[in-house]
């Protein structure tokens, strides 16, 4: 027969388990501001009203903030890749012909939302490469719930960047 737990059996177990802490009171010491729980429901209701109000415009703002920059960056890189391919075929342009400004523009389109000072500091402090740090930052920023989807995109972006000879480490230092 399966043992049936009751509040009493749980309490007995807890009292017995924490035997080395005779003065262990169950208080945890956490407090809240005065009147916090009285006001919380109305603050939640306020947020519900504002979130339902902005739900229709919310999608466009999410698109603007998150999807559009990524799509723009991918399109830009694809465009540059195709352009470079044809230019190279025509023998007209070499890598040296791409200006620093073009590189910076492409880079900012990819990573414009990132705090570069933070990344720079982290490079100095952590010993990680800028790429690793960008990876970590962008995983959380773009795809909080999907590391795999992010990995695919970030790999593509960095592959493209490398194709142009853009090492994010160098780009970062050039932006300092």
């Amino acid at each position, binding site marked *: 027969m399966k043992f049936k*737990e009751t*509040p009493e059996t*749980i*309490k007995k177990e*807890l009292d017995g*388990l*924490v035997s*080395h*802490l005779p*003065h*262990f*009171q*169950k*208080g*945890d*010491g*956490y*407090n*809240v*501001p005065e009147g*916090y*729980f009285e006001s*919380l*429901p109305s*603050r*939640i*209701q306020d*947020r*519900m009203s504002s*979130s339902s109000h902005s739900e229709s415009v919310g999608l466009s703002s999410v698109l603007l903030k998150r999807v559009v920059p990524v799509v723009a960056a991918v399109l830009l890189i694809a465009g540059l890749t195709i352009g470079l391919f044809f230019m190279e075929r025509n023998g007209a342009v070499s890598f040296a012909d791409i200006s620093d400004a073009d590189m910076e523009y492409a880079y900012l389109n990819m990573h414009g939302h990132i705090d570069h000072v933070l990344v720079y500091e*982290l490079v100095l402090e*952590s010993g*990680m490469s800028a790429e690793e*740090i960008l990876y*970590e*930052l962008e*995983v*959380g920023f773009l795809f*909080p719930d999907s590391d795999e989807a992010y990995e695919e995109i970030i790999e593509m972006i960095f592959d493209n960047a490398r194709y142009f000879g853009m090492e994010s480490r160098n780009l970062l230092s050039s932006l300092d």
Partner: protein
Amino acid sequence: MGSYTDDELLALFRNGDNPNYAFNLIVRKYQETIYWHVRRLVVSHDDTDDIVQDIFIKVWQSLHKFRGESGLYTWIYRIATNEALTFLKNKKRKFFLPLVDVGKQLEETLEADVYYQGSEMEKQIQKAILSLPDKQRVVFNLRYYDEMKYEEMAKILNTSEGALKASYHHAVKKIEKFVGA
């Protein structure tokens, strides 16, 4: 406000004229339990306040899809636990914190939080709890502070009762060692 059962609240939400009112009753019924559950995990009052609001917004957005396979209480707890763990995970990612440093950082948050006024003993215990891995901390808190049955915990955490018992006992041993050291 009378004390409604979860079934009554759900019926009021689904069939009543004013779902907002029913939802408000749900918030009032669970806000404190959920707040303390999250607070013990993320420590800071301000972070907890944000997370608790997010949790109830999610509850509101999904309540019409809730089919009642688990109890309302279990369902809200599951959302709350996931939100709190996601918050901690994102924090680790953002600051590249290894496990040990997360505990350390939470300890610092505890020391700095103006809404923490525990005795030295309570603070010592809290630091011991904060040194545990996140999921073990959830198990310890649910069992110790919320006195939750393993059966219920298993539904919230989607883990077997045996694993939860082992995890809890392991957590207690670590806390005892930490405090005794």
